[in-house]
Structure formats: C-alpha cells, structure tokens
C-alpha cells in the first residue's frame, strides 16, 4: 500500500497501524504494553501528542521511558528508566487487577466479531494443528483495564466466525486497529468505522471471516503526518541498533 499523492512520504501498512493506534492514546493514559506493534504505538504516542503517557510492562516496570524500542518486555533499559520496578505477583495483583491501568494492548492469532481473542491453539486443544504461545497476561488484561486496544493484521484466518479457543473476552475492546482500517464495537459487534488511505471497504470485507458490519459513515484514516512518520522511523531505527 502506498500513500495518497498529497503525502510527501510513503508509508507501510504497519506504520499506518502504529500511527493510528498511537493516536488513540490520550496524554496521561496509563498503558499496559507488550512487545511488537503495541510497544511501537505507545512509544510513538509518548514522542508525539502524549508525552505523559505512562508505560507499564508486565515484567514489573512502571513508568518506563525507553530511549529505543525494547526487544523484550524485560529489557534492562525498561528497569533503568522506570519510576518503579515491582515483582510480577505485585504487578498483576496491585496494579492490573486493581484497575489502575487505563489502556491495555492485545494481539492474537484469532478474533471474533465480539472482540474475543484466541492466542492459545489453532485446531483442537488436545491435538492442535498449531500450538500458540498461550494467554500470558491477556485473560486478565482483557477484563481489568478500562479500554482494550487490539492490533491485528486483517485476514480471513485471523478474523473468524468462531474462535478455536477463547483466551480472552471482548467486553472491553474499544478499538481494533488493523492494516486495513479501524473497527469499533457498535451494538455489540465490531464494525468497520474507517479504512486506511487507499483501502476499499470491500478489501476489508474480503479480509474478514464473517459478514462484516460496516458503519454508515465510514471515514478514511488521516494518513501519517511527516512528524508522526519521522518520529516513528527514528524510533524503529534506534530499536534495530
């Protein structure tokens, strides 16, 4: 996918996803962050419109301020730059379960129309075709944070009519940012509310394993600004150092 002609810089669909997710974070939000796209999005938000966004990693680092993208949720820099480092049992009991986290990012192998997620197995549990890593923090993140943001590339294999395993609940999923657009729950069902620049609604339908609900007023995501894109690229190049 390429940018529209108004944009001086072209961008990838992963970049669009990170930028769109970052924009959803409000300044001061306390975010529970994993590695990969969520970490990119949260760190981008901190460098653009939300400098007071508080990053909490499940490894126990509260208020981490990494200068480059962490490669693991346990990177030493997270501990060094954190306001506080707590034990893992304390993190899950006193901080996550107690409802102190505003936003939790989740990914998954499968999502259904209600935002329920599967990160456990593909196929039958006892003889799976693919054994996935498992739930990790997801089951309780999904029910303990105020707002769940899902980031997931959109394909019919990932956006399924029925999950092979329900690892976490969709009740608090407020937005699903994909490489094609943005879905939000409306009347209890994930509904396409925006497509990314250059993407057609039918592209999104084709990438969804159920009959996708589409909002009447589907908009087009504002493409990344130069500032967003430059900040993101600076961040990612540091991460690769």
């Amino acid at each position, binding site marked *: 996918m390429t940018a529209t002609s108004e944009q001086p810089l072209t961008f990838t669909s992963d970049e669009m996803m990170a930028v769109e997710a970052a924009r959803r974070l409000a300044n001061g939000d306390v975010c529970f962050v994993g590695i990969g796209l969520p970490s990119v999005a949260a760190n981008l938000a901190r460098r653009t419109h939300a400098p007071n966004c508080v990053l909490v990693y499940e490894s*126990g680092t509260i208020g981490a301020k990494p200068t480059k993208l962490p490669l693991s949720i*346990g990177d030493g820099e997270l*501990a060094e730059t954190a306001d506080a480092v707590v034990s893992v049992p304390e993190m899950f009991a006193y901080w996550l*379960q107690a409802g102190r986290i505003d936003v939790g990012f989740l990914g998954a192998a499968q999502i259904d129309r209600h935002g329920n997620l599967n990160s456990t197995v593909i196929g039958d549990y006892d003889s*799976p075709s693919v054994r996935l*890593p*498992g739930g990790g*923090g997801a*089951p309780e993140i999904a029910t303990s944070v105020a707002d769940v943001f899902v980031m997931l590339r959109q394909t019919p294999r990932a956006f399924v009519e029925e999950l092979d395993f329900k690892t*976490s609940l969709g009740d608090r999923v407020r937005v699903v940012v994909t490489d094609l657009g943005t879905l939000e729950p409306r009347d209890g069902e994930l509904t396409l509310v925006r497509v990314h620049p250059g993407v057609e609604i039918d592209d999104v339908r084709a990438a969804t394993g159920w009959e996708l609900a589409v909002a009447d007023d589907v908009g087009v995501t504002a493409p990344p600004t130069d500032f967003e894109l430059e900040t993101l690229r600076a961040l990612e190049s540091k991460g690769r150092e």
Partner: protein
Amino acid sequence: MAEIVTLSEAVRELVHDGDTVALEGFTHLIPNAAGHELIRQRLRELTLVRMTPDLVYDQMIGMGVARKLVFSWGGNPGVGSLHRLRDAVEHGWPAPLELEEHSHAGMAAAYAAGAAALPFGVLRGYAGTDLVARTRVATVTCPFTGEELSAVPALRPDVGIIHAQQADRRGNVQLWGITGVQKETVLASARSIVTVEEVVDELEPRPGAVVLPTWVIDVVAEAPGGARPSYAHGYYDRDNEFYAAWDGISRDRATFTAWMQEHVLGAVAA
C-alpha cells in the same frame, strides 16, 4: 545456611527424576546454565514449571527432560514459536508433553500462595475463558460480599531454581533489575538452587534489589554467564541475535539435536 557448591553438585544433590522443578526469571536472569545442567545429567520425567518458557525450556523439552509443562506463555519473545515445544505438543516428539496452562495473573497468584504456604491463591480472572475447562482453577465465594472469584492451587515445586547476580560467602543472595517472581519461586519450593554471576565478600545494598537470606536457600553455585543468552543486569546484555538464530536451529529435529550435542552435552558444567 546455603552451601556453596558447583552447579553439577547442586543439580545432582537436589534434583531427582520425576520432580517438579521451576526455573524462573521473568524476561531477565533466566537460569540457562542450570537448565543445561539438567539436560547434561539426563534428568527425566520432570514436571517443568515456568511462567514464560523460552529457549532453555525449548531445549529441555526437545532433549526429553520433561513429562509435563506448567506455564502461562511459551514462546520465543519477539521472534515467534518455540519449535521444540510445538513439536512435543503437536507431534509427541521426542515424547508427549502434558500441558497445564494458566494466565500470568493466575500463575503469579499461585506462586505467591506457595510462598505464603497457603493452599490456594485468589484472583479476579479466568472467568468466561476456555482456559477454565483446561486448567486447574476453581471458584471461591467471598464470605463478606458474595462475589465469586477464581482460586488457583498454590505452586509448591520440589525444586526452585533461579539465577542472581551475586551471593556472599555465607550464601546470602542479591538480585536486581527486573526481579520478577524469583523471590516467590525460592520461598514456594521445598528445595532451592541459586546460580550466581559471582560470589563476593560483601553484598552492597542496591536500589530495587531483592535479597534472599542464606537460610532460605539450599545451595548456591557460581555460574558466570549463567543467564546467557538472557541477560544479567549490570553484567551483560541480552543476546538478541541468538534468540533470532534459535528459530532456525530449533526448527529441525536433526539440527537441534546436533546443536545440543555440540553446545550443551559436549560442554562441561561450571
């Protein structure tokens, strides 16, 4: 009082076939050297416990050490799957692997309950997920509010193994940086082994450190670099390239076996 011994003595004295063994270190101070020693001493039928099994668990599983895995997230962080874990679960190679899987929150509560010698931990979790039918979790009712919560059985491993930066000569241990669930692992386990980067004359108090007194530890073994390819805060960094390389090494049974032969079985214990 912890005895200071070699790693091979530590494993020989404290770990037996069929034991439940937890090697912890959440994203940091992962006791890789101790895991390799379990492989070298050809321990069998272990129930291996770990919140985040990664490379060293993939290696132990692939080498046939484990009968069962108790875990909450098993992957190569930032890279992908653990191919030996998958091969064991999906194809029973080298042996079938029984799984007991939890959420992180559930396992953390289970370790904390074990450390406190309570039979169960309580959390608001699991509810509504398919995990409930696949793991050991039950319901408890609050006697004051009537709210239903989840209970997980306490983790009480036979042996808890962690890696720390330092011990003093009496066997007091200090670790710092991300300290994870290591205190609970030692306190919840019937026996414990701590490998350390170095034994020092005096432990200098450090911000954010966890100190475990010698009298709650069975043995301490010096194992410099014992967390590699994980890292030891203040000693060395994570070997990110090896985590990426492991994906290729572990994909194929023969490549894996050859690598283990050369790098683990062929190596001498610390």
